């Protein structure tokens, strides 16, 4: 198939899945089958048709509709979006297996609505990945928010409703007040919002105003969970775990950092930010978020909340990489989107498996569980090492690129910061594994009444993604090469 039209088909794939799931709601097995088949076809389209084209230096493009003069809904795929699309669609397959196991294991209500919204959220994420200009990205960005809202409030309890309000309030509030203003301002200054290598703002904007415009973009993209707009992420942890796993560790938050990275590369351009230093303040904010979220994570007893703060900290790595504006740091940011996705989704899968299998959500209750759930905790251990950044796991590479980016930008204190934060990551992740394997189980619990029950659909996925963390260490080169081709496309004009 011609890559440009494939772009559209792959994009509408998840939307079609949503329709099919809604239609098949009465037959759960068929319904999950539809999700699985759909997810696999979408991934096949991304990996089989789009990847070869982008790999060869192609930039498939499709203009859909010009809905206002100068504002076109357009799709264009470049390496960074390619990587994001691969991660989101690939992990969607694994997550749909896991979600089926999780929801059935817990006898959740409204399962059809869950899978419909889930597919729509993936639709939004792919739209963000494929967006050819800022206004298109904004449209899909909002689509993600709206489609994930029913997932966050899935439980329907008072706590879920309250969390839903925070979620919608922060994400929509910042995006309408700041991000949309930034888009309108960009359109006003540059006459376009098309993503262009080297940026579109050079020479069009007073350098005094640049930091402000960047601030509107960075703070408007609350999905990146930069402080002070990070509160929605811990709040969203009331959602069922598959949502936390794929959406709040991969699709939603990565859409956020992806947006910031994309804005830095394609709206501002590296040269402009390097020469004016307009992103220096963002480095400071990201560094602050990175450390303080890690410290907060140390004190969380609820496993999912701890993971959420860890995510905030890890997302700040990506924003920091983007704000350093060197090619290495940006490649590092792109790679970290991948490695953190695999690591964090594994951790959430494990958290959910523990919840379904042993009905435990607090770390202090997990003593001695490691022996009873060896596969789950082994996967947790491997993924933790990847998040911390220890070879031979994927996370080591992204941190390597980020660190060398900091060195290139001559920000040596940041190297120390990376060290400290890795130590903090050890501090908030390793005790979970340690307590599970080495502390004796609490005997006062009536454990025999609740025998450990692990559905295979909840055990296999984390093992697979943990294996993915290992594999990433050995196959990082092609991904880094792909990201590098943003600036030097193979065989094509830049």
């Amino acid at each position: 198939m011609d890559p440009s039209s494939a772009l559209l088909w792959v994009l509408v794939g998840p939307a079609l899945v949503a329709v099919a799931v809604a239609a098949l709601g009465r037959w759960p097995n068929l319904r999950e089958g539809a999700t699985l088949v759909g997810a696999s076809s979408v991934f096949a389209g991304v990996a089989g048709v789009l990847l070869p084209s982008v790999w060869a230096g192609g930039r498939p493009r499709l203009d859909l509709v010009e809905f206002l003069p100068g504002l076109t809904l357009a799709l264009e795929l470049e390496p960074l979006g390619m990587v994001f699309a691969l991660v989101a669609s690939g992990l969607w397959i694994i997550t749909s297996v896991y979600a089926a196991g999780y929801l059935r294991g817990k006898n959740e209500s409204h399962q059809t609505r869950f899978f419909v919204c889930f597919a729509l959220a993936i639709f939004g994420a792919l739209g963000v990945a494929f967006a050819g200009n800022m206004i298109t990205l904004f449209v899909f960005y909002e689509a993600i928010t709206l489609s994930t809202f029913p997932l966050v409030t899935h439980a329907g309890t008072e706590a879920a409703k309250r969390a839903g309000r925070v979620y919608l309030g922060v994400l929509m509030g910042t995006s309408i007040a700041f991000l949309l203003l930034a888009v309108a301002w960009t359109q006003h200054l540059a006459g376009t919002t098309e993503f262009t290598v080297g940026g579109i703002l050079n020479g069009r904007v007073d350098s005094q105003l640049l930091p402000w415009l960047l601030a509107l973009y960075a703070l408007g993209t609350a999905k990146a969970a930069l402080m002070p707009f990070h509160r929605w992420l811990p709040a969203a942890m009331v959602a069922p775990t598959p949502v936390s796993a794929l959406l709040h560790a991969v699709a939603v938050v990565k859409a956020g950092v992806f947006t910031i990275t994309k804005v830095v590369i394609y709206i501002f351009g590296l040269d402009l930010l390097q020469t004016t230093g307009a992103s220096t303040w963002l480095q400071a904010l990201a560094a602050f978020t990175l450390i303080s979220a890690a410290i907060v994570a140390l004190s969380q007893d609820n496993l999912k909340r701890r993971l959420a703060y860890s995510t905030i900290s890890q997302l700040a790595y990506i924003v920091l990489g983007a704000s350093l504006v060197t090619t290495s740091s940006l490649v590092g940011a792109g790679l970290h989107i991948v490695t953190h996705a695999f690591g964090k989704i594994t951790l959430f899968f494990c958290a959910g498996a523990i919840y379904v299998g042993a009905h435990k959500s607090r770390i202090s209750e997990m003593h001695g569980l490691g022996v009873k759930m060896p596969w789950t905790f082994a996967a947790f251990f491997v993924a933790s090492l990847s998040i911390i950044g220890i070879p031979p796991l994927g996370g080591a590479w992204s941190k390597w690129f980020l660190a060398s980016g900091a060195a290139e930008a001559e920000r040596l204190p940041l190297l120390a910061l990376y060290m400290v934060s890795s130590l903090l990551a050890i501090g908030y992740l390793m005790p979970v594994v340690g307590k599970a394997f080495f502390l004796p189980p609490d005997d006062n619990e009536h454990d025999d009444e609740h025998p450990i029950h692990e559905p295979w659909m909840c055990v296999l996925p984390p093992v697979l993604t943990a294996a993915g963390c290992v594999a990433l260490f050995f196959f990082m080169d092609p991904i880094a090469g792909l990201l590098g081709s943003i600036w030097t496309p193979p065989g094509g004009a830049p």
Partner: protein
Amino acid sequence: MSSPLGELIRENLPALQVILPMIMAPVCVLVRHRTVAWFLAVAVTWTTFAISLALLQIVRAHGLISYAMGGWEAPWGIELRIEPVNAFVLLIVSGISAVVLSAARRSFEEEIPRDRLYLLYAAFLLCETGLLGMAGAGDAFNVFVFLEISSLATYAMIAMGPHRRALTSAFRYLVMGTVGGTFILFGIGLLYMVTGTLNIEDLHHRLQAIDADRTVLVALVCVLIGTSIKLALLPLGAWLPNAYTFAPSAVTAFLAATATKVAFYVMARFVYRIFGADLAFERFHIDSVLMPLALIAMFLGAALAIFERDVKRLLAYSSLSQIGYMVLGLSLASVTGLTGGIVHLFNHALMKSGLFLVMACAAYRIGSTRLSALRGLGKRMPITAATFVAGGLAMIGVPLTAGFVSKWYLVKGALENDLWPVALLVLLSSLLAVIYVWKVVEVFYFQEPPEEAGRQEAPWSMLLPTMFLIGASLYFGIFTDGTVGIAEWSARELLGGAP
């Protein structure tokens, strides 16, 4: 059409537009049968809609239609003058009349004593006459005359509301509306005193020629106050929430989309076409008053909506806020800003009348529009509730809905004038819209319906027009060539001064 009759009709379209409903209103009274009257009224409104479509085509081709009533040439005779702007307004008024009236029969029969329905249809047609006349009139005095026709019909329609408080609401509106009308009449009188003419084009030329003094300023102020009352710009719009809340449901849907919109058009036409942008903005700086008022209306209206427990009244407060957007566009005095104001006139008419029709559907089945009565509407009336969500998204201004288009132009207009705080305020106020829309959505979907309530959807005769209006407000968010094109053309014409 080449036959003599066809030619005759074609030449007299501007007059037919106004006269048809005017003639049919007394016929409705004579018929006295509610279904026949309804049928006649629907036929007339659809005919006026067809006429306004035809007029728009002619204006697109020729740019202007000047029609001399009875063959008396302007500036002495009565002129109907169809330009891009009011062709657009005529289209909205007649289109909304047609759709709303088609949907209204079941709702009216539920809410109003059946033996008085024919009077309501007559009043409806008279109101449409007045509104179409206001939009089409080429001289200032007839704007006032038609304004009074439409206002009197409106008071009668509101007073027919099912609740007793409809009477006090109608009376309050009557007082305010009369004060507003009087201010406009004062303004017109002063203008006549200064220039000796009433024809709008003539007024414009003569005002440019003379040195504008205090009399002209007073005339401008009178017109602004009068139109502000009629279009419900806060703080002069306090009559609106009660009038909208207690009027029959379908009447509210009609008024919300037409009465305030035509009043806005009158304000724009007086400011730009009689006084001219130079006089109004460069000399008298009306933007220094209008813009703050518009911003206050945007926020105050939305804030009041957030704390409201009756959805109909919530939507009425939201109208106050949305009217602020339109006036803001007018006060920016640039092509982009004015385009935003005019396109919002169109878009808001679609979505607000759609949302009020949703409430008419809910009131038809449930008998109340209070939030507490609408619990679990997502389960009880799934289509109705989903339509509300779609309309609500358009109201917030989510991209690819009509609401986004208007807001984009307002933000762009503000940025072009280097008023970035205004741009930020426009966006912040749409956050308030998120809150009041979502408050309703939560009640629809997160609260369980009362025990005894079953699933009972509104009749299709009401649902289809409702879905049509909301669907249109989504359609015009994606395919904007038509609306934005006409709005921008109108804005240029209004700003361009002499035609």
